[in-house]
């Protein structure tokens, strides 16, 4: 397979050089605001986010499983680390980043990417919308209690971003926005906040460093909850973004390799003084839209980012925050799934509730993992509730009025036990009762217990009870349905 491996490597890297390099340049522009904005949210210097974005993007280009996807320092992970930085400081953030990376590597090796199948479409939509709202909310500090001039600048920025493409699509409009707004503010000497006011910008290449923390169990206990949350959210967003890029480009990706790659990138980033990150939905869409498809696009995005910061550092510090806010508002708008609002009317109520609950969960806790957990739990409950309705009990009385046969059909499990109990009439004085469960699936212990209770109750009322077809019905109770072992087993299960 050597040649094939090399062939794949070649096409993933150099299959689309021109498109990838240009797209990388465009994406780098959209990375700067996010890296700076979320460093500030996390309470660290912009340097930390910028180093992280460079390092994650460049590393993931090599080790990621989804060519053409953009990963860097993100909103999703930054909001999780706010309290860690506030209470314990930067060094703990770096250590948490390293640990989060290691957790992700383990998750990838254990192939936990498959768990994604339990995240339903509605939860994904909720996640994406919540993320867009988080990104937007993160801009609010720059928009509240600021001079009116700022609003004017942001509005002008948005106008440039959305209107400039009508003029030409060959120059990235965010770049035009940054250049024009910076020039105006320098020319007129506006007194508004600039990037330089937000903290230290990188002036050198990142260097290797070991987080300066005591290596003991206390430290571990402090950082572990943060690392676990960052790892979980990072993987969720990355796998979701990978799916989006898969769909957009109609090409497959290796999800478990992406998990491991994410872990490697984060671990390494912690050691050069960057914060944890993951894939970015908005920037990945920008990349695909700009023609980026291969690993080279992600690599170039990272390299251009560092180049711009190091070479143009002096100018970067003079960019008004308003320009970056405008770009982030654009990213937020582009990330938001607009169709999900339209679909609220048409989609089943349960899926809309799942979506909205996910959004509320995230916005309230600022933790995407909790929102997704709420969404997944709700989906599971709704699903169980729906399946519980596929259930029916009918009965016939024998001609002499002494023997009633109950016929149970459908799914019997914890959610249907109440209906199951109510369907039997214990007041009727009978000599014999037959319960035919051969057309039912008994899924769990709750339903077995319910059946036992019913048999007991009939006995107490003086009836003889006979159960038919229990063996067939309880085939589903084992944890792993051994359908593939026996020919015809699947048909038997379905045919009930």
């Amino acid at each position, binding site marked *: *397979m*050597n*040649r*094939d491996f*090399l*062939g794949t490597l070649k096409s993933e890297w150099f*299959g*689309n050089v*021109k*498109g990838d390099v*240009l*797209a990388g340049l*465009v*994406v780098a*522009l*959209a990375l700067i605001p996010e890296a700076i904005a979320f460093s500030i949210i996390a309470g660290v210097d912009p340097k930390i986010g910028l180093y992280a974005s460079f390092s994650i993007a460049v590393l993931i280009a090599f080790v990621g499983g989804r060519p053409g996807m953009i990963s860097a320092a993100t909103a999703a992970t930054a909001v999780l680390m706010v309290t860690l930085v506030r209470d314990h400081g930067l060094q703990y953030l770096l250590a948490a980043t390293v640990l989060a990376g290691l957790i992700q590597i383990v998750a990838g090796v254990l192939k936990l990417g498959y768990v994604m199948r339990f995240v339903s479409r509605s939860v994904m939509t909720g996640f994406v919308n919540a993320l867009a709202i988080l990104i937007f909310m993160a801009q609010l500090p720059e928009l509240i209690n600021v001079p009116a001039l700022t609003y004017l600048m942001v509005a002008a920025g948005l106008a440039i*971003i*959305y209107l*400039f*493409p009508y003029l030409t*699509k*060959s*120059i*990235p*409009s*965010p*770049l035009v926005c940054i250049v024009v707004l910076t020039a105006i503010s320098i020319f007129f000497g506006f007194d508004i906040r600039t990037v330089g006011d937000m903290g230290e910008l990188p002036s050198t290449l990142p260097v290797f460093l070991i987080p300066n923390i005591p290596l003991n169990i206390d430290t571990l206990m402090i950082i572990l909850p943060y690392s676990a949350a960052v790892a979980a959210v990072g993987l969720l967003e990355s796998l979701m973004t990978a799916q*989006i890029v898969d*769909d*957009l*480009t*109609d*090409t497959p990706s290796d999800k478990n390799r992406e998990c491991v790659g994410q872990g490697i990138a984060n671990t390494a980033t912690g050691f050069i003084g960057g914060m944890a990150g993951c894939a970015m939905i*908005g920037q990945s*869409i*920008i990349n*695909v*839209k*700009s*023609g980026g*498809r*291969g690993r080279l696009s992600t690599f170039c995005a990272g390299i251009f980012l560092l180049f711009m910061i190091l070479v143009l550092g002096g100018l970067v510090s003079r960019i008004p925050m308003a320009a970056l806010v405008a770009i982030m508002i*654009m*990213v937020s*708008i*582009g*990330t*938001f*799934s*607009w*169709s999900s609002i339209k679909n609220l009317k048409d989609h089943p109520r349960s899926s809309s509730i799942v979506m909205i609950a996910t959004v509320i969960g995230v916005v309230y806790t600022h933790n995407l993992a909790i929102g997704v957990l709420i969404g997944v739990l709700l989906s599971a409950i709704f699903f169980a509730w729906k399946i519980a309705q596929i259930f029916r009990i009918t009965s016939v009385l024998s001609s002499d009025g002494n023997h009633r046969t109950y016929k149970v059909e459908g799914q019997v499990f914890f959610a249907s036990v109440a209906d199951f109990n109510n369907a039997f009439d214990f007041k009727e004085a009978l000599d014999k009762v037959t319960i035919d469960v051969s057309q039912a699936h008994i899924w769990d212990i709750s339903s077995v217990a319910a059946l036992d209770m019913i048999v007991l109750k009939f006995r107490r009322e003086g009836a003889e009870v006979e159960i038919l077809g229990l063996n067939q019905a309880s085939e589903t109770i084992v944890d792993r349905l051994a359908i593939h072992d026996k020919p015809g087993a699947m048909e038997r299960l379905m045919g009930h």
Partner: protein
Amino acid sequence: MTKVLALIDGSQYAQSVCDHVAWIGSRTDISVNLLHVIGRRDLSTEPVNLSGNIGLGARTALLEELSELDAQKAKVAHKRGRLLLDGAKDLLSAAGVAQIETKLRNGDLVDTVLDFEKQTDLIVIGKRGEGADFAKGHLGSNLERVVRSTRKAIVIASRAFKPIQKVLIAFDGGSTALKAIDQVARNPILRGLACKLVMAATDTAENRRKIEDASIILKAAGFPVETEVVQGEPEKVISDMVERDKFDLLVMGAYSHSRLRSLFLGSTTTEMIRSCKVPVAIIR
């Protein structure tokens, strides 16, 4: 009945592939699967939008735009594929081949060929495809991957077909080569053609004996056989001989080097396919 899989694309080799299949059909009873594979769609031809902005519904809009582009390209590719296959089918029917089926598939060429392997005895492929750049002496990238991955006998068509009269059989004295000779002897396709066994090695008594042993197998099957042991690099010796003595077909055994070695050095087989200007048959 020999089941032939013929790989057709838009290059001028398609014609030659058909001619080779027709010739095989004239030697023995064949059924032909004509296969055209539409590869992964080209990445770089999409119109580039560097505006770098994303608005409401960006994902849906982009998905629709990209799928629309792909759909259009795919439709054109299907139409073209059908035309290529129909053209090839007409050629073969005219040449008297009765059992022809055409298959149009999406995906990777090598994977598709492997899918068809079960229902195939012999693969016919052009030395280069439409994707390969036309610098002389280069092989198509797909050709090499197919040759490496398949376990079936394969005929690699040269640019234009010439009726095959004289066959050169490369022999290295190994057991794989001996098996290949046995296959040739038992197969009706080459039976009765003038053939020559050549061994690129030192002219020792032992090598002489080996090549004579091999020639006995062919003689017994009714081939007029010559033998020769020539000193030198196999690639050079054999391609020179093909040119000088005007052979029409080179027959050889499959790859024998380890994959790792051939990754760096290039295998003798690949080199031979590259340097000889005649069709090459690789026997497994």
